[in-house]
């Protein structure tokens, strides 16, 4: 059984950080939440982030994960907008 709720840290960078006007926050989520739920939560708070939805990547504890990755209490979730460019 998953716990009734988990507490996680969310880290924001670059354009996403500018939209939220913060680089880090802690939130409580329902137990059994997945990485994609964090993005949905952020978009609900900051609708401007919607434009990133299809190509943002999520890292949990410094590794890229799929949106369905199950979160645990204490995880650090990083919202990774497209990285730095050049070709």
């Amino acid at each position: 059984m998953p716990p009734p709720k988990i507490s996680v840290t969310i880290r924001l960078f670059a354009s996403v950080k500018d939209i939220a006007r913060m680089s880090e926050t802690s939130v409580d989520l329902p137990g059994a939440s997945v990485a994609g739920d964090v993005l949905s939560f952020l978009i609900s708070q900051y609708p401007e982030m919607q434009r990133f939805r299809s190509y943002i990547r999520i890292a949990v504890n410094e590794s890229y994960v799929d949106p369905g990755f199950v979160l645990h209490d204490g995880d650090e979730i990083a919202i990774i907008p497209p990285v730095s460019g050049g070709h």
Partner: protein
Amino acid sequence: MIEIVNKDIDAAELLASVVAPEAGGINLFLGTTRNHSKGKKVVRLEYEAYTPMALTLLREIEGEIREKWSINKISIVHRIGVVPVMEASVAIAVSAAHRKEAFEACRYAIDELKKRVPIWKKEIFEDGEVWVENAESKST
């Protein structure tokens, strides 16, 4: 040597770090701040990193290179913060017994860095600024 620094990159020091008696060639790539982007004048760039994850992924890239090519040494340094025009934001040096491996490994390192290492670039123009979003990194 894998580092993220908040100061000038010393290319000579980077080269010295990969010199090896077994090496027949050293490849050095420097990514420098260009004074223009999409027709606009760039005043400076600002880089931001998710440093611990960026270092982990740079080491992962080094591991992949060592599996693919027979190289002697590799160093990767990325600068964060403000990087003025003409100065280097990233430097990669690879030594190998033969030049083919050195060139290919160096190319792989910069290409993979751009795809997956969490470092972001903001272009500062005379009349505004924008975070650069790399199409290459969107696909995975």
